[in-house]
């Protein structure tokens, strides 16, 4: 649809539609002189080209005459139909006109952002671009399959880790399908693999020594966090493409709204009370 917009003819039509619309909105008056229909040379060329695209040859002079007469017929009916306000209640025309107006406004919004604009957007919408925190850690895992012994075993492991300063940790505890050591793991991946509660605890655990145990759906984990990157707002260079994407989207929405509000401001809108209808059944309950 965007591409359609770049079509120069459509742009021309859109601008024309806007001008017509504005003209009407300002209450322009029809002249009393007999209305004139001018079929310009450019218009005739256009008719010829359209014909040639379909038929793969130029029109004969008879055919061209017919095309021009048909164009005039279009124009006459268009003007008279409009004068009779036949377009007013036609949903197809209304939608098409609205769409043209919106295209027009969206086109006005297309622009290449400057670094300053992108920087400002990043500064005012930091949360949209926040990078995820990550963590490098290893763990000693005690499977919940140990059952009642789990707590006592955890005590022994804690003592062993303390005594040996964790040097032989790799030999302690149970094997774990996802592995024993994780490097620069993003928070969302920790949540996926171990659950949210575990992630909360892991990201607040003291780094550089054995901590825990932390509970997960799998059992207990003593963890040694070796490195942690806090979540943060990256510099513009790191997220330029994303900021451009969001900036363009925000600008489009904003311009469209601005355009509409300006036009809307020209009207006093009176909404009459609708006839009372039974309310549809309310949707209950939270749907995530």
């Amino acid at each position: 649809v965007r591409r359609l917009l770049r079509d120069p003819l459509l742009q021309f039509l859109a601008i024309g539609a806007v001008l017509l619309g504005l003209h009407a909105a300002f209450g322009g008056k029809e002249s009393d002189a007999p209305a004139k229909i001018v079929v310009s040379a450019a218009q005739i060329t256009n008719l010829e080209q359209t014909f040639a695209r379909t038929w793969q040859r130029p029109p004969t002079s008879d055919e061209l005459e017919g095309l021009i007469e048909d164009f005039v017929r279009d124009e006459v009916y268009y003007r008279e139909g409009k004068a009779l306000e036949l377009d007013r209640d036609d949903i197809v025309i209304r939608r098409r006109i609205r769409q043209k107006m919106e295209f027009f406004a969206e086109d006005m919004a297309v622009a290449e952002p400057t670094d300053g604009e992108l920087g400002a957007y990043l500064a005012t919408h930091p949360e949209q671009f926040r990078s995820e925190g990550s963590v490098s850690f290893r763990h000693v895992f005690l499977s919940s399959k140990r059952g009642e012994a789990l707590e006592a075993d955890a005590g022994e492991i804690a003592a062993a880790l303390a005594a040996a300063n964790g040097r032989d940790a790799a030999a302690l505890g149970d094997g774990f399908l996802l592995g024993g050591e994780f490097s620069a793991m993003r928070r969302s991946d920790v949540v996926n693999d171990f659950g949210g509660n575990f992630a909360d605890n892991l990201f607040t655990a003291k780094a550089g020594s054995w901590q825990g145990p932390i509970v997960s759906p799998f059992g207990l984990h003593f963890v040694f966090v070796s490195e942690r990157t806090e979540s943060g707002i990256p510099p513009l260079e790191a997220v330029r493409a994303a900021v451009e994407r969001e900036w363009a989207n925000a600008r489009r929405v904003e311009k469209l709204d601005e355009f509409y509000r300006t036009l809307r401001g020209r009207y006093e809108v009176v909404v009459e009370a609708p006839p009372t209808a039974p309310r549809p059944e309310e949707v209950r309950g939270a749907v995530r």
Partner: protein
Amino acid sequence: MGNTPATALGAMILFVIAAPAGVYGQNHTPDKATIVKSLGQTEFSPYAGRDYPTRVFWGDTHLHTAVSVDAGTMCRLGQEDAFRFARGEEVSTTYGLRAKLSRPLDFLVISDHAEMYGLMPQLLAGDPEILSTDAGQRWYAALTSGNTDAVFGTAMEIVASLSGDEPPIKSSKAVANAWHAYTALADRYNEPGRFTALIGFEWTAIGGYNLHRNVIFRGDANLANQTVPFSQFDSKNPEDLWRHLAAFEERTGGEVLAIPHNGNLSNGRMFTVETFDGNPLTKEIAELRARYEPLVEVVQIKGFGEAHPALSPNDEFAGYEIWDRSNLNGTELKKLEMLRWEYAREALKTGLMLEQKLGVNPFKFGMVGGTDAHTALTAVEEDNFFGKHSGVEPEPNRWKHVVIEAPDPKLTVFGWQQAAAGYAAVWASENTREALFDAMKRKETYATTGSRMTVRFFGGWEFSDQDTKSRLPAGVGYAKGVLMGGDLRSAPAGKAPTFLVAAAKDPYSGNLDRIQIVKGWLDANGEPHEQVFDVVWSGERKPDADGKLPSVGNTVDVRTATWSNTIGTPELIGVWRDPSFDPTQRAFYYARVIEIPTPRWTAYEALRFGVTMPAEVPMTTQERAYTSPIWYTP
């Protein structure tokens, strides 16, 4: 006597410690083979050689947005909303509900229908070129009438028109425009390492008989723009689709693959032993299929396509979310003899037979799940299910609304019959288009019904129970075996295949009940067989006299839509050796992981909206995963 052993042991330790000094004293450097032998592993560093995938990536290979002509009749969410939702952002649905996934997905293929690609948004915008067609005008009037029945009727008409010979609305320029807009959008949302937007489309041929395929590109917009979506108006014959893909690869140097789906609704047409024209399958066509269709979507909202109870009467878990009354649009009743050409397990067996005959196995595929949602929302969590299309998005009565209307009311499909499923799990070295695509090609994938459990499956000749005690089972698996989707050939004398299989639960879903291995094989007469083996399970259960493992039980409280993980287990690992292996017979093996019962989406729905559904509506489910097979070829 009491002290003697300890003293002897002490002396031994001293001796052992002293010995290396002697060795080094002679300035002798042992070669690698000696070290490796004494270590019992190939490297000293447990991390060396670990270039195998350590993370599984989750995604959906099958999603429609308003750009699809059928979805576009009811869904107002476009491709950008679909990407945003899949990567974890909140969006507003067509009816204004706020929607968000519990956890982001890692990748997404937006597979809008190739047929009249992108025309629906233009139709709804009143595009004059489209409104100048008869169909365009009629549809436009109906869709903008505000009459729900008229909208639904038109939606069904548009779906039906997808199977016609001529597109009711034809505009190659508009299709190209929409396709280029999509590929550019996918490039913008593709963030290597964080979220992968694979480019794709759906070829929707023989609508009622569902021979549909999702085509996926390995490359970016530059590559994908060298073609436009191949549609059923180009050809209804899947063989032509494969030839088109082959020509595309030849011409561009790019790579593509296709994923067939919903064999269960093909009424006997998806996995047959004939060509499209009804002649016996040839080697050339079998090769094309094997090359371009490495995967099959075995589960999605429109039901399950792996196994059917009538085909697998001894498999108590075969009857999962079955849709088997008719073809897709309910115009032809299902007959029993059609089933064997529809379900993946049967197709894998048929593939062995065809390989014996043609020398090529056209059905050598791995497994993925997809949603096929037409809502732009890949939302199939049981407590967060947004339905098949926007006519059945959450609201109190959607369970009894029509999903697919059939001429015979008995064949009409209702809301409650939708399965909240599934997702594709891909073991890839990193989250990029290239790595994910390559993993799909080598079939290192598994299907789940929506739950995100971790599953490993390796086959080899030397796995033993000791391997289940390994601290890093995946390392042992990659070192000693082939991965899911791989091949075992020419059994060493006296050996039977062994399999290392392990699973860890989805932290947000139920515990695990059991892991099974499904074996299919050809006997000496070329007849296919199958058997399901329980490999490892939770608790102290013992198989009964018939070898059946007792049920894990059920903790679901339907009234409150809750369950407890007091049964089952968070992890399972086991090694299984084929007890009935014959080295002269072709076979395949794949793993199935079953969760304990949890509430089905209908139970959450009944609770939320305070509605009562009839007894025929299932309220519990057992989520499961299916790995790609490992094949044995003599």
